[in-house]
C-alpha cells in the first residue's frame, strides 16, 4: 500500500529549476475539480498548479485514477458535468481561461492549444472522411476555401511521413487502425501550429512497435511547430526518453515535480521513490541492446 502524501513535502516539491529565459505560456493555479455522484462530492483534483514554458516537453505522470487526465482537461476548460472546476484559474496570455465563454475557448482550442485524446473514436466523426475532418479544423481558424484547406492537410500529412496521402484523406475513421487514427488526431491537433499540445495517453492500447512511431511523430511535429507539450501518461519509460520535466500526481494532488534526470536520480517523495526504484530495477535488469555486428548465431 502506498502511503498518503504528506503535506510537508508539497511546499518545496518544485525542484524544476527551469531557466527563466523561456516564457510561460500556460499556467494553472490551485485548480480544484470536484465530481458529484448522487449526493456525494469527490475531489478528483486538488491544489493543482503547473507552469508550462515555451517549447517544453512536460510529462504528467501517475497511476490510473490519480486525476491526471482530469487535471489536463481542466487546463483546457473541458471539464464537463458531473465534474466541475470549483476553484483555481488557468492563465493564458494574461487571461483566465476558466472565466471565458465556451465560444471564446473554442477559438483558443484547436489553434493555440491542441488536444490529442486517448480514444480516437471519441474525437472522430464516423460520417466524414479524414481529409474533411482535418481540413475543418484548419478552416475553423483560417478563412480559406475547402480545396485550399485540403491542400494544406495533404502537405501536413506528407510531412508526417505518410506516403499514400490521397488514400488516407479519402478514408473514413472506421477504416483506420489504432496507430493510424492516432496519427490523424496528431495532425488535427497540430495543423494550426499551436503553442501547446496536450496529449492524453496517446499511446495507451497501441502495440509496442507502434508506440515508438507515434511518440517520435509527436516529437518531430512539435519541433517543427515549436509547440510545448503536456503529455499525460502512466508509463515512466515514455517520460524518461521524451520529457524534459515531470510532474507526478497521486490521489488528485501533485506530489513531486522535477527535471527528468533529477526525478530518476534523486526522487524525494516516498511514492515517487518506490515508483522510480522498481521501474529502474526492471529496466536495468532486462534491458540489453544487442549491438549490431557483434553477435553471431551459436553453432547448433
Amino acid at each position: 500500500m502506498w502511503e498518503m502524501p504528506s503535506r510537508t513535502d508539497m511546499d518545496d516539491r518544485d525542484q524544476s529549476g527551469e531557466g527563466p529565459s523561456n516564457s510561460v505560456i500556460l499556467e494553472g493555479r490551485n485548480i480544484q475539480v470536484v465530481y458529484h455522484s448522487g449526493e456525494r462530492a469527490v475531489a478528483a483534483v486538488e491544489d493543482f498548479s503547473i507552469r508550462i514554458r515555451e517549447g517544453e516537453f512536460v510529462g504528467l505522470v501517475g497511476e490510473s485514477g490519480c486525476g491526471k487526465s482530469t487535471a489536463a482537461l481542466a487546463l483546457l476548460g473541458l471539464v464537463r458535468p458531473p465534474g466541475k472546476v470549483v476553484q483555481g484559474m488557468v492563465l493564458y496570455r494574461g487571461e483566465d481561461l476558466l472565466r471565458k465563454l465556451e465560444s471564446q475557448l473554442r477559438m483558443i482550442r484547436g489553434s493555440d492549444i491542441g488536444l490529442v485524446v486517448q480514444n480516437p473514436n471519441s474525437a472522430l466523426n464516423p460520417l466524414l472522411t479524414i481529409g474533411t475532418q482535418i481540413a475543418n479544423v484548419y478552416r475553423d481558424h483560417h478563412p480559406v476555401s475547402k480545396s485550399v484547406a485540403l491542400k494544406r492537410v495533404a502537405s501536413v500529412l506528407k510531412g508526417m511521413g505518410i506516403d499514400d496521402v490521397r488514400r488516407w484523406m479519402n478514408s473514413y475513421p472506421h477504416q483506420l487502425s489504432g496507430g493510424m487514427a492516432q496519427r490523424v488526431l496528431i495532425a488535427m491537433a497540430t495543423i494550426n501550429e499551436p503553442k501547446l499540445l496536450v496529449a492524453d495517453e496517446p499511446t495507451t492500447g497501441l502495440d509496442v512497435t507502434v508506440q515508438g512511431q507515434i511518440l517520435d511523430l509527436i516529437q518531430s511535429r512539435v519541433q517543427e511547430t515549436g509547440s510545448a507539450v503536456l503529455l499525460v501518461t502512466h508509463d515512466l519509460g515514455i517520460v524518461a526518453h521524451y520529457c524534459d520535466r515531470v510532474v507526478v500526481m497521486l490521489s488528485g494532488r501533485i506530489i513531486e515535480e522535477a527535471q527528468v534526470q533529477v526525478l530518476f536520480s534523486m526522487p524525494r517523495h516516498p511514492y515517487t521513490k518506490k515508483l522510480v526504484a522498481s521501474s529502474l530495477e526492471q529496466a536495468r535488469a532486462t534491458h540489453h541492446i544487442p549491438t549490431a555486428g557483434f553477435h553471431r548465431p551459436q553453432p547448433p
Partner: protein
Amino acid sequence: MSSSENTSLLEVQALVKRFPAGRGNTFVRAVNGISFSVGRGEILGIVGESGCGKSTVGRCLLRLIEPTAGRILFDRIDITRLSWRQLLPLRARMQMVFQDPLGSLNPRMLVRDIIEEPLRLHTGLDGLGRGQRAAELLDLVLLSKRYLHRLPRELSGGEAQRVGIARAIATNPDLLVLDEPTSSLDFSARSGILSLLMRLREELGLTYVFISHDLYTIGAYCDRVMVMYLGVVAEIGPRRSVFDRPQHPYTQALLSARLPADPGIRLGRHVLRGEVPSSIDVPQGCVFASRCPLVREDCLPEQPPLTVVGSTHMAACVRIADSTNMLDLGQAPDPRVSSPI
C-alpha cells in the same frame, strides 16, 4: 522438436486455428502452424503484439477454443479430440488465470462459491471439506477469510485476481495458463500478483504458460520465451538467449522498441514501419515480410521454417543461414508510414 520430450508436460504440434470471417470463404488465421513444448516446472512466456494469436493459443491449450488442426499433448495424452467426459478429469490438472480479473468472476456469486465450484466438480469433498479448502486457498493467495462472503464488485482489481488465482489452483493443477494476468492491474497491484504467482509456482510445483505483451514482465520471470507474429512462431528459446541475442528481425525490433524507465540508458532502436497487418488474408511467404527492413527475394513464397541457432534456440528467418539477419539499431527515428489502410 524439443530435446526435453521426456520431461515435457505439454507438447503442441502444428497447431492451427482459423475463424470464419463472416463473408464467404475468408478466414481469420489466428494460429498458423505452431509447435512448441513446455517442460515440467518451467515458465514459458509467449509474447507478441495484437493479432499474433497468443491468446488463441492459450485457449486452445485448455480446449476453450477447438483447434482446427494439429495436436496438443498434455502429459503425453493427446487431448485434442477428447470428448467432454474424457476431458473432465484432465481439466482439474490444467487451469487458466484471465486478463480481466473482475470480469473473470461471476458478478452474482460469492467468492466462496466461486472458489468452491471447481471443488464441487472435481473433488469428493462435502460442504464442510470444501469450505475448509476454500479458506486454505484464500490463505495461499494472501486474502483473509472475510473475503469468502464478498461479491466481486466489492473487490479491487488485485483482490479479484487473487480470487481468480485461488480458483485456478483449487484442484492442484499441474499447468496454469496465465493470459495477461497483470495487464489490467494498477502498477501497485501488479508486483504483488507477480510475486504471488512466482511463490506459488515454487511451493506447488506448477508449470506456467505466461502470455503477455509486456516484454519486461516476460524478461523478468520466464525461463523460455516464444515470440509470435501473425500466428506463427518467429523465435523461441531460453530467455537469456532470446533477449540478449535475438535472431529474428522482428524480435530485435520488438526488444528495441522498449522504453526503459531510465533516462541514462541510451536507446538503440529500430522503429518499424507500418503496423501488424490483418489476420485475414495473411500474405504468402514470411508473415513479417511486409514490414521487415531486411526483406529479400527468398523470404517469399513460403513461411521460413525455424532455423536452429542454439541448443534450444530457434528463429524463423532465411537470413540466419548467411548471418545477415541483424538489424541496424541506433538509427535515427523514421516516422515514415506506408501501411495500406
